[in-house]
């Protein structure tokens, strides 16, 4: 039976795919009725079911409301495996862009104060933020030792090199993967790809946006986060660039060769995996943690560039970091499974960790409120700040974006980059893009309705909405 026909109601905006065949656990899909047609595509549900076959998986193979067709894992998938019971780690469950993530910077300015300076700020950002192909990064490395230090220390190394302040580090998710980084396990090819890209956006769906807080939906949480209506923010969305992609490719290849030694078979080669507690598993996690550091250092360097742009063209360059999240990551976390506290390897591929109020890993000044969950929307629509809730769901996870509904091809058939630029500019959104086609590929019409995605998260008990952000200007990779 096809997965779609197996989808049965399982609670508010929650659906279940019952176990069949090699599935070790059921699938759980979070979707409202409005999102269901986009979420319940055969390819997506097949991938949710395939993930449910992984050795050691516990509870369920989860799909967030923004889930869409990936390769191996769906994008928007969450899967946790039991480390002590042969649970596996799969590089495909993290994705190529390890630690692809989002950070939000808060300006003391209101949109009305920025308005006369917006075009100049966008020009400064356009000049200072490397995008697209080549061009290097804002942080030219002194040598190999500096790259190794970035892989070992991440944003801390960026701050030590002058790209930010100690205050940034308190909001930067340091140590959240539960695994020590091992730069020595990062291949020469991966390091070569990473050497000239520290502090660059890249391309694809990555962007830097100047935004305004359009609506506050939870006054208490917003106050704790330092958010107020009308406030200017900067959102940065990018990852670990070529280095992270190479690490994923390297380890998928080595695990494809090693799987048979562990008697593991997977329904899709991109799900290649080995036990967490194996030489290959530890090697991947050490390299992945190093790539996560690279991703955070990358966003930290871009943060410094954004501050410089504001300093040059706006009344103030102050941009305080609210939080930095990674939405492509595996982390070792303790969770209650049945009556036992178990160490799990939680894969979030296109999903964001969403820690509930009181979690010990939260910074002191956010612990009573919960973790900020940053959800970038599509250009021209909106982005959201959510907050983790108790008890949460899917091992404390929530969505990571609007989620694509149309392929890049379909988007290109519906609108040109030039037309989209005009449309965005007619809405008062200043656009700086590396390529017109790249812009059109990321058109808002290619994405699901982000308002519906985050409302679904809230109804399903994954996270709660705090603020809605509207773009004022976009630098598109």
């Amino acid at each position, binding site marked *: 039976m096809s997965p779609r026909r197996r989808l049965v109601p399982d609670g508010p905006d929650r659906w279940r795919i019952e176990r069949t065949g090699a599935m070790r656990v059921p699938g759980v899909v979070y979707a409202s009725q409005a999102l269901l047609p986009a979420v319940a595509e055969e390819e997506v549900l097949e991938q949710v079911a395939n993930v449910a076959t992984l050795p050691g998986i516990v509870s369920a193979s989860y799909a967030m409301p923004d889930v869409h067709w990936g*390769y*191996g894992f769906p994008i928007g998938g969450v899967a946790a495996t039991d480390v002590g019971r042969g649970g596996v780690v799969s590089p495909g469950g993290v994705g190529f862009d390890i630690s692809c993530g989002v950070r939000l910077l808060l300006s003391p300015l209101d949109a009305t104060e920025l308005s006369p300076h917006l075009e100049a700020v966008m020009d400064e950002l356009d000049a200072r933020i490397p995008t697209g*192909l080549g061009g290097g990064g804002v942080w030219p490395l002194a040598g190999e030792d500096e790259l190794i230090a970035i892989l070992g220390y991440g944003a801390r190394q960026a701050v030590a090199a002058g790209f930010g302040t100690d205050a940034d580090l308190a909001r930067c998710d340091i140590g959240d993967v539960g695994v020590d980084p091992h730069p020595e396990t990062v291949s020469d090819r991966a390091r*070569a790809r990473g050497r000239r890209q520290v502090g660059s956006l*890249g*391309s694809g769906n990555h962007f830097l946006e100047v935004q305004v807080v359009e609506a506050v939906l939870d006054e208490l949480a917003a106050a704790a986060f330092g958010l107020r209506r009308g406030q200017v923010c900067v959102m940065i969305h990018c990852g670990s660039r070529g280095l992270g992609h190479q690490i994923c490719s390297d380890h998928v290849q080595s695990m494809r060769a090693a799987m048979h030694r562990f008697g593991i078979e997977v329904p899709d080669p991109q799900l290649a995996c080995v036990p967490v507690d194996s030489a290959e598993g530890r090697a991947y996690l050490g390299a992945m943690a190093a790539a996560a550091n690279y991703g955070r250092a990358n966003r930290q360097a871009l943060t410094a560039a954004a501050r410089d742009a504001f300093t040059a063209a706006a009344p103030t360059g102050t941009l305080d970091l609210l939080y930095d999240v990674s939405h492509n990551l595996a982390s070792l976390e303790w969770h209650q499974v049945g009556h036992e506290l178990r160490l799990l390897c939680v894969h979030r591929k296109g999903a964001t960790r969403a820690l509930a109020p009181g979690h010990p890993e939260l910074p002191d000044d956010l612990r009573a409120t919960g973790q900020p969950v940053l959800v970038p929307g599509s250009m021209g629509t909106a982005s959201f700040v959510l907050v983790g809730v108790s008890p949460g769901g899917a091992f404390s996870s929530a969505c990571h974006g609007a989620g*694509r509904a*149309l392929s*890049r091809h379909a988007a290109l058939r519906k609108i040109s980059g030039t037309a989209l630029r005009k449309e965005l500019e007619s809405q008062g959104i200043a656009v700086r893009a590396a390529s017109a086609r790249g812009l059109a590929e990321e058109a808002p019409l290619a994405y699901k309705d982000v308002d519906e995605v985050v409302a679904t998260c809230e109804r399903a008990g994954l996270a709660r909405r705090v603020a809605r952000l509207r773009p004022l200007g976009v630098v598109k990779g």
Partner: protein
Amino acid sequence: MATGHLPADLSGDRGFLLAPHTADCILEAWGPDRVTCLAEAVGALVSVFADVGDTATTTTLPVVLEPAPTPDLLVELLEEVIYTVDVFGKVPVHVHLAEAEDGGVAGDLEVVEAAEVVLIGSVPKAVSWHGLEIAEDGGTWRCRVVVDV
């Protein structure tokens, strides 16, 4: 020796196209023999992000693929192109490949500086094994591969 020319000639016995994938891109390529199919796949990969136009090539880079199953050769070749773009900032314009006596594939890439091409889309960064196919069917070699952009 098979040569891949960009852009592809869709009317001939060799060529490529890009098929829809929700988040990324599917390359499909074909040719009368294995190395032509591989060369066309490189053309498909480049067409995702670059309009190379009539850019004159200035440099040739060797490609040597050790003997391996054909799907592995396809992945390795495309990863080599991605690496060349990422690390050396060079974009292949022509591809020359031939079967090597040892069962591998050898040849070269005629490349131009990335600054010389028109960037028209997101740059592929990795090659996925999901749904990867390459095989000979009725005298034509065909491949299908998802790339991450």
